[in-house]
């Protein structure tokens, strides 16, 4: 590589390149973005893998996430503690899964986690209601919300427990070719 950078060791960059869908240059660029979210918290020297986490409130201020109605859930799904505090590994993971090159199965797994608000491994009616309200910015009447939730679960629920398990969700996603292009954030 061209310039000698001191942010990561070569071994670290190789590891990142093998574990995510990013190249070395993109990882360095991501580090730049991570750093500018909290310059006082994030060290420029990552050769020792410092244990630094940026809180949720700072991450959701990124321009790519700011207006997204699911921003909190997205960040929480990728955080290790479930509260939205992202280390650099989690940050890279998040954008790697949301990048163009991630395959459908991987995206489906994380999309399921995002829409599972109460984190019980199922998308139940309440999760669906919350999803709808965020999608439509509460423009639908409560009756319409209930109706849509019932219909959606009826359509997608295959094993009849009136909730969507991951298998139901994945089966439904396989019928949506647009999922790959819409579930994508460019960084």
């Amino acid at each position, binding site marked *: 590589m061209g310039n000698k950078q001191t942010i990561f060791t070569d071994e670290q960059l190789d590891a990142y390149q093998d574990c995510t869908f990013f190249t070395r240059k993109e990882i360095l660029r991501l580090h730049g973005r991570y750093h500018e979210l909290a310059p006082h918290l994030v060290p420029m020297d990552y050769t020792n893998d410092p244990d630094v986490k940026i809180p949720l409130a700072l991450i959701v201020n990124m321009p790519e996430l700011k207006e997204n109605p699911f921003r909190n859930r997205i960040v929480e799904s990728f955080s290790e*503690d479930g509260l939205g505090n992202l280390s650099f590994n989690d940050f890279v993971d998040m954008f790697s899964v949301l990048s163009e090159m991630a395959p459908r199965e991987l995206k489906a797994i994380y999309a399921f986690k995002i829409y599972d608000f109460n984190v019980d491994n199922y998308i139940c009616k309440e999760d669906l209601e919350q999803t709808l309200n965020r999608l439509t910015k509460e423009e639908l009447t409560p009756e319409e919300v209930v109706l849509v939730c019932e219909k959606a679960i009826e359509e997608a629920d295959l094993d009849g427990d009136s909730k969507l398990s991951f298998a139901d969700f994945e089966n439904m996603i396989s019928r949506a070719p*647009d999922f790959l292009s819409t579930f994508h954030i460019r960084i």
Partner: protein
Amino acid sequence: METIPDGYEDLIELEAVGRSHRAVRFDLTDGDGEDLEAQRHHEPEHTHSLQRNSWSSSTQRVLSSMPSRSIRWNQTAVLSQNQSRCTKPRRRRAPNAVATTSGAANRDVFTEREDCANDVTQNEELLSKLQDLPAGECVRLLREMPLSVSEKRQIRALCFGWELEQPLSENRVLCCHQFQACFLKVLCGCWLGRLSQQISIQLWQKVLKNIGARFGTGILSYFIFLRRLLLYNILFFLINGLFLLLPQISNSPPPPKDNGMNTKDENAYLWMLTGKGVLTNSVMFYGHYTNSTSGHCQDKTKTCPHNYNIPLAYIFTIGTGMFVTCVLLVYRMSKSFGKSFCTLKTTGNLALKVFCSWDFNVCRKRSVKLQAVNICTQLKEMLSELSCRKKKRSLCSTLGWLSVHLLVWSICLLCIVGCMMAVYYIHRYIEQGGRMENDPEGLLTVPLVVSCLSHLLPGFFNKLSRGEDYNSPSVHIYVSIVRNLLLKGCIFSVLCYYWLQRIDDSKKDHKCWETFVGQELYRLVLMDLIVAMLHIIVAEFLWGMCLRNFTLRRRKLEFDIARDVLELIYGQTLVWFGVLFSPLLPAVQIVKLFLLFYFKKTSMMQNFHAPRKHWRATQMSTLFVSLLFLPSFIGALMCVIYTMWRIKPSSHCGPFRSFDNMLLLGEQWISGLGNSNPSLDWLSKAYIHLVDNPLFLFIFAGLFLTIIYIHMQLLDGQKLIIGRLQEQIDHEGEDKKFLIAKLQALNEARAQ
């Protein structure tokens, strides 16, 4: 099997998705209040209430120990079909009072003990399986594992130790060169495809991000298509430039004597528009290329390949360029088809709308608001459709619908025929007026007319089709694409017919028909650009300004993606067809695409609003790439092959002066290869006995068709299996409901 060494147990923290194992407790009901205390005693962590029925506590106890509720989440497609990840009970977080966060559901009380022993063996299995795989597969699996990056790094370090000097992912390129895949050209396609992916991902990244943020994925697909076309043209230009242009330039013959061409003409400055003048005898057009190995080597130049056979290079360069483009297109098409393939069921759109319609790319506040409003409107429409049944058409209205369709179709077909005749007769008129030779008006009229027709008529067709009533918006789009393609195809075929006639005429006149056709195509491409830019300026900037300032609602324009993509495809077809006669045409196309990109982008930002209708980007992208391959590229390729094979090159210019057709040179060369170079004798023998032999071609075609047929049968079989499995899942669901209800009935009976 021995246990894993101590250190590893800490390192291996492979978790299920969600980074913690979640045992799903069965839900309690609100109604069954008296049992709540008992519940808490048995199941300390509980999630919130059940949707449907109120089960008794004994039923609940049974249900909560169902395998699907307490087993870990099985990941798909990692190493084997249902390989379960090993989990360790760890990370005891402070138990949360509100049991709705991930921290709480941490331990699997029911199966923890048994699984500890399984964990270790599954760990080892996973690692050993990863180590057995080749590097490329391993990287692919590692990337696709739904684990966090820190865990993946640990797995990577464990599997491969500390001996790695370079990332595994770089070995992918070496794999390709080890010829492990079936065919050489598939390999090359993969490699080239990945390389092209790298290049195209980086150009205009920020601009595309802004466009996507504001307008969404649908409109973004137009710009991505444009970028892809640019890439194909750059590759073609590089191939031509390196192997054809540079040798020809370093070897250029002395300028020919002026054959009555008046260079003091006042129209000489229009050479850039008309392709005449200075350009006629330049590397731009076929006529300039020498028909021999370099005999005109100038002493001043340092690189002077003495036996560089220009005519052979001509065939091989154009052929290689076409081949590379073909491979890239097929690769892109196969990837698109893979992405856009959807299984058969067409119902179930409401759930899809809820989960798959939010475009995560959009990040501007106003666009986000617009998107939310769109989705809301669509959901309301879907609800209203569900509530009222689809009205059946009566006989009268069916007849009316049919007659409207027929009327519109007949008007369109009449317009198309009218255009064809107009183009033909204008050509004849100009030719008879004798203004064809040097008069720019004569030269530019036909390209201007053709470009105007192909830009304006589709808009007219669209307006007509507003009166038609279609079952679904996608049918509407397909119909308008078909009409558009028909128009352009017909006009182009008239032009080809006219050129074929001119070729016959020019054989008597001793003129260079290839340069003539090359110039015509050059003018067509240029006029297309000029008309497109004028259209953007007038119909988008000026009209958009009028709409914004003089209407009350301050509307903006709506982007018609299908029409603009078809314009791009048409322009590219002209280039692919013309590259045989004008090897520098890809360079012109590169400049054109650059200009178009920036013009369109500026116009878009100012004059257009985000689309109201949901544009199915993936499926439409697949359609456009297929259109680019099938009618456009294959059509151009067929025309080029026909020209090279059947039409006699002109005898006064160009590299193929002395041949009956261009391909004869190639045949001659390969057949003669054995004589000049004994070690390559096998190649010429192979050519004579295999390629030139019709029997071999028949056998090859037969095999190819057989393989296609086998694949089709396989696909049919798989569709059948999918249908059957779907039924099976439905039946299992019914069984489950039945059994739960029976269980509940039994418990209630026992309780009484």
